[in-house]
């Protein structure tokens, strides 16, 4: 076991690019202008998954013999009978008050057999149902709060990684019982953060699977039980190593709010959670995504979870030089939406990636410029630096060199979370030896050049500074274009821009995409006890 030892340098060094503060202010102002109408939309709609998350916080879990979760049964039943415009909790807790069933599970089971009828209560019954609902979600929220306190305590006891960036490794076998020893081994080999990649199809499932799972495609299903098993295994290894090992999963796709909730309930530490990824890359309805995202980010804020955004994806479909500014725009939008939802700077793992074609002259200098730009725009955010994938050709030797240069950029520009690149990217799932070699690569570069962040100052108006300024000004131009993009009167400019194909060349109209039928406009009497607690929490 090799332990990284080197002098710790300041992880957030002094600004190195001479950027015009007025341009940066303008960029943030435009991001706010583009984002605010979307937030308004999110505040006036709900989704089936947000409502299911409320029931999960109220303690309802499990599934029927066909694997359909009880939360799905209950939300569907309420939706069919009285609609979701007032929220699921009022009719559900009204039914409990009326003595239809003794508890949520029995109620859901009765629903499944079709023997429950819901009503929208009137008068004093409304406030009584809402009061009961609020009282019922409080224990769930308290568990999230307690988990946050436990994490803080364990970090104090075991400690954070000794170096920056933190080393992020992926496991993905499809079988949670295979993942566990692999994750523990990875931690012993030096990983600080373990990400369990989800089964490829999960983002488009409109329910969260139940239980410990042993079958998955290109990943392992995110389930509450899998979360609990992996967190317990990493707690064990954290104790052994004297270093708190963080666990990552994905709050994305159609069940984003529920998975965020389960992450809070099971003390996950980081969640992949991008504001537009689902829309652009999974063709999920834009409104569904923004509504789900706001709720899930409020949960993350409360749970002390660090989000990881998905800007790397833009560069896998578009050219990393020409589309560099779309990464910056997405980072700014993610920052706006995250802060609006109550996340602190320390929770913003904004993403970016080493994806410039290595055949292009000065590709390394452009990577440095982009990484420094992100570092300087978001000085307090734990930036997530992601390795090359698009230009990994199958020549593993060349790929190993490319990963070394990727690590070097990470070290030179003070990145915080480094996803370890594998030379077998695009070839096979990594061999044990590939992972070992990849970690040796990281250790060598961080050990040999980690302190270079102190010495490295790109010259004034040189190539790197000029390139960074150009990307920033292109980002501002794109944001200007977005805020002035109005289709029909009263339409939301950002949605119009997404519909036009402004991001990643994909056109995603607001009235299409998967999960649209799960979006409901809130009525004036809408009540969501979880949101009540979350909004109160964010004002604490």
């Amino acid at each position, binding site marked *: 076991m090799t332990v990284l030892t080197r002098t710790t340098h300041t992880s957030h060094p002094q600004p190195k690019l001479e950027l015009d503060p007025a341009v940066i202010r303008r960029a943030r102002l435009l991001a706010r202008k583009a984002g605010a109408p979307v937030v308004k939309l999110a505040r006036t709609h709900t989704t089936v998954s947000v409502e299911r998350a409320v029931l999960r916080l109220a303690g309802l879990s499990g599934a029927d013999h066909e694997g359909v979760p009880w939360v799905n049964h209950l939300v569907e039943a309420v939706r069919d009978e009285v609609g979701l415009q007032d929220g699921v909790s009022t009719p559900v807790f009204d039914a409990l008050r009326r003595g239809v069933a003794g508890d949520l599970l029995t109620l859901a089971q009765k629903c499944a057999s079709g023997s429950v009828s819901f009503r929208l209560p009137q008068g004093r019954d409304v406030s009584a149902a809402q009061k009961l609902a609020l009282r019922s979600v409080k224990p769930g929220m308290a568990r999230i709060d307690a988990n946050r306190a436990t994490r803080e305590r364990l970090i104090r006891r075991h400690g954070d990684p000794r170096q920056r960036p933190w080393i992020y490794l992926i496991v993905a076998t499809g079988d949670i019982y295979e993942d566990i020893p692999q994750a523990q081994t990875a931690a012993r*080999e030096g990983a600080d953060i373990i990400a369990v990649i989800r089964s490829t199809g999960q983002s488009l499932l409109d329910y969260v699977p139940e239980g410990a799972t042993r079958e998955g495609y290109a990943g392992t299903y995110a389930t509450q039980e899998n979360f609990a098993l992996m967190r317990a295994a990493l707690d064990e290894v954290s104790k052994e190593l004297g270093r708190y090992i963080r666990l990552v999963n994905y709050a994305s796709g159609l069940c984003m709010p529920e998975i965020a909730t389960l992450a809070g309930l099971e003390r996950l530490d980081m969640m992949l959670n991008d504001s537009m990824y689902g829309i652009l*890359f999974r063709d999920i309805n834009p409104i569904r995504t923004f509504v789900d995202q706001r709720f899930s980010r409020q949960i993350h804020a409360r749970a002390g979870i660090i989000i990881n955004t998905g800007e790397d994806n833009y560069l896998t479909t578009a050219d990393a030089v020409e589309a560099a500014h779309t990464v910056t725009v997405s980072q700014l939008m993610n920052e706006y939406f995250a802060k609006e939802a109550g996340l602190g700077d320390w929770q913003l793992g904004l993403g970016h990636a080493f994806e410039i074609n290595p055949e292009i002259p000065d590709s390394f200098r452009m990577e440095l410029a982009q990484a420094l730009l992100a570092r300087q725009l978001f000085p307090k955010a734990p930036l997530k630096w992601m390795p090359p994938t698009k230009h990994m050709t*199958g020549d593993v030797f060349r790929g190993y060199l490319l990963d070394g240069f990727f690590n070097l950029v990470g070290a030179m520009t003070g990145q915080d979370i480094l996803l370890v690149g594998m030379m077998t990217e695009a070839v096979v799932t990594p061999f044990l030896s590939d992972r070992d070699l990849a970690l040796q690569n990281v250790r060598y570069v961080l050990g040999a050049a980690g302190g270079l962040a102190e010495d490295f100052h790109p010259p004034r108006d040189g190539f790197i500074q000029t390139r960074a300024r150009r990307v920033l000004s292109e980002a501002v131009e794109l944001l200007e274009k977005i805020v002035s993009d109005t289709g029909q009167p009263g339409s939301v400019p950002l949605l119009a821009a997404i519909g036009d194909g402004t991001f990643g060349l994909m056109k995603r109209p607001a009235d299409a995409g998967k999960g649209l039928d799960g979006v409901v406009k809130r009525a004036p009497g809408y009540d969501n006890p979880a949101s009540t607690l979350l909004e109160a929490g964010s004002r604490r």
Partner: protein
Amino acid sequence: MNTRDTTTSVVAPKALPDIIRPYGDTTGDAMVQVSFTLPIPHDKRAEGAALQLAAKMGLAPALLVHAKAMGSDFTFFIVYGAVSHLVDLREVVVVEREFALLGAKDVNAMIKRRLRRKLVVVGACIGTDAHTVGIDAILNIKGFAGEKGLEYYREIKVVNCGAQVLVPELVARARAEKADAVLVSQVVTQKDAHIHNTMTMSAAFREAYPAGKVPLLVVGGPRFEQGSAPALGVDRIFGKGTTPAEVASYLVHAMATSKEQER
């Protein structure tokens, strides 16, 4: 391993010998380099085990240049050595490309002359596969390897359905668009997902269309086996490194041959 179409390589200027050996730094030295992991702790016996494996792989003499413990249960080895096997070039079988590579101009002209309308291509990633890199490289105007994608061809109408398209959706879209060809990309290969998805897709098309009217079914991905198109129920497979021009050339070639068959 690269499955790039071998016909794109330049014709050798001189006659090749029939029998060859690997080349390290001298003709005939037969030197190769391999790396592997054995599930045992690193000690003298492990190194002996690595050399035994090298000998069984035909490396003689074998030189163990690197051995490193990975945790307490595994050891990683790098071995250099002369391989005792010979390569007989006369026994190498290559699948030749059955069509001529055409430029965009020629492709457009062929479509115009033969169809007198635009050629309609519907593309998608099906199943759970969310990797649109392949289909986008072929379809998007941006293209791949400096070549413009099919959207750039004036006489081709491209409908890109994107990722995670359900098979019934794809069939419906192909029918609605009166597709001449359906392009499907499959990058995820875990548990043979690419095989299952492709067979489901081709079966669905055969079911939905009358015999002989099924659009050309083309799949692309890095892990399809050459020559497995008939077994998968598709007309053509494209592997890693395929360019848009190859696909376009194939489409007009297939269109021409099927037209001739109809007559």
